[in-house]
């Protein structure tokens, strides 16, 4: 049997030497604070908000977003994590992925405003899987999407409501997100791509 090692952090290639910084640690925390304000403004407060991070790097981002919202509003927002592995449409195209546990806050998601949080928005397929996973857990009043980086190249009609940085990329470039909770540092870098 072939199994991924769940105890290791999610497999990420090492960042090549020639990678360029896109967001520094300060940029990331400013972006998350701004997104926190945007969510509160859009929602007219923190009522009924539930933040769900998508593993692996969406989870610490959701927790930080929750802390940012609490700092502004003085109300703790329920934060959970939503594993989408079992709903992916690309399972058969690659080696087996580890399935993680979803942790849904005790408040549940019925009639809540659920904000999905992920690090990079690319094809949109992960978010499609997340919407399917959500529909099995309950019926939120609305679902919104917050991402740290939107790099374009959507393959599905999905867009983010809150974006840390819009990053025009070519398909042969790679975006590397590192968060201190999992990787020991906060940075977003980009590598690869010809003729740039």
């Amino acid at each position, binding site marked *: *049997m072939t199994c991924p090692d769940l105890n290791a952090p999610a497999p990420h290639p090492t960042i090549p030497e020639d990678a360029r910084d896109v967001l520094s640690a300060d940029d990331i925390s400013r972006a998350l604070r701004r997104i926190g304000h945007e969510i509160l403004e859009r929602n007219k407060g923190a009522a009924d908000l539930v933040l769900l991070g998508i593993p692996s790097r969406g989870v610490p981002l959701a927790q930080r977003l929750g802390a940012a919202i609490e700092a502004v509003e003085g109300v703790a927002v329920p934060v959970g994590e939503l594993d989408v592995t079992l709903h992916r449409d690309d399972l*058969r195209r690659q*080696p*087996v992925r580890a*399935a993680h*546990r979803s942790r849904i806050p005790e408040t549940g998601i019925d009639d809540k405003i659920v904000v999905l949080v992920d690090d990079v928005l690319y094809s949109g397929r992960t978010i499609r899987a997340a919407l399917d996973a959500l529909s099995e857990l309950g019926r939120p009043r609305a679902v919104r999407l917050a991402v740290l980086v939107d790099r374009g190249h959507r393959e599905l009609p999905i867009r983010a409501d809150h974006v840390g940085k819009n990053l025009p990329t070519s398909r042969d470039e790679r975006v590397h997100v590192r968060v201190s909770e999992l990787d020991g540092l906060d940075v977003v870098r980009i590598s690869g791509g010809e003729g740039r």
Partner: protein
Amino acid sequence: MTRHLLSSADLSRSEVENILATAESMHDLQRREVKKVPTLRGRTVINFFFEDSTRTRSSFEIAGKWMSADTINLSAKGSSTSKGESLRDTAMTIDAMSVDALVIRHHASGACQQVSQWVRCSVINAGDGTHEHPTQALLDAYTLRSRLGDLDGKHVVIVGDLTHSRVFRSNVITLKTLGARVTVVAPPTLMPSGIATWSASDGFATSWDLDAVLGGDDPVDAVMMLRVQRERMSGGYFPTAREYTVGYGLTRDRLDRLVARNPEVLILHPGPMNRGLEIAPEAADSARSVVLDQVSAGVAVRMAVLYHLLAGNDADTPPREPGRAPDLETTPAVAALPSAAPQPEGVAR
């Protein structure tokens, strides 16, 4: 690393831990209102049971269905096997229908290993003769870990008819893979003769005396009672059922002494139980019994096994050409049986 699950010895520690971790997320699904994920949509799983089974077959069926695989049950009675078709022809016939996995229970030890050499699909051993039952060992490990945490150094006692028990064989392998210490107890007539090859390894002991083990210096974290197979009772392995109970049953008296020494002790039984024979009703229904937890874990663990075998792309699966049988030249006439487990002597006796 193969695409089959034939023996518990196929799994490394990290593989066992990965399957059990996946089983945890599958267990979450079991508690939901809508118990269905699309993970194995379009995959076909055949449960081919040449022996009777309630929990293994139904849990494999449920596991496949909750992951949206098409699951079909076949039994020897009512299939062409009853018309005299050989195992090889039956297996290749099913394989030719382009199924993705064949879950097999068979009365012959090594049957699954044999079938895996004849087919392109994944083969999962759901119990072969007196050889192995790897998914039972995984669900027992899952149950134990959910109560005891890490099994490193934990002491598990397995009691009963070891000679004819595939559950015991797989459990010893998996428990030792996870670092637990195992003591097995059986009357001399039901102790496999080859067990000396296992006794030599660390953290493994055998005994003929249940009371000495339960009351010994080494505290017991869990006791697993094996079923006494009623068809063995006429085999001369022990004089009477009553005598077996007195010597090797988990009686009310033994339960009281166990709990007095370790109030957190766990009692397992793979089922079906013979109440009053190997396990007293007081023990089976006591607060320390996790028999129903084992059944509940069975579905989650089998989902995890199907997921790990079927969800990804299969790089090492030979491409399927419809209607063409595997090359006979490359198929050994007799498959080598895994050598890790001592082969039972009791059957031939």
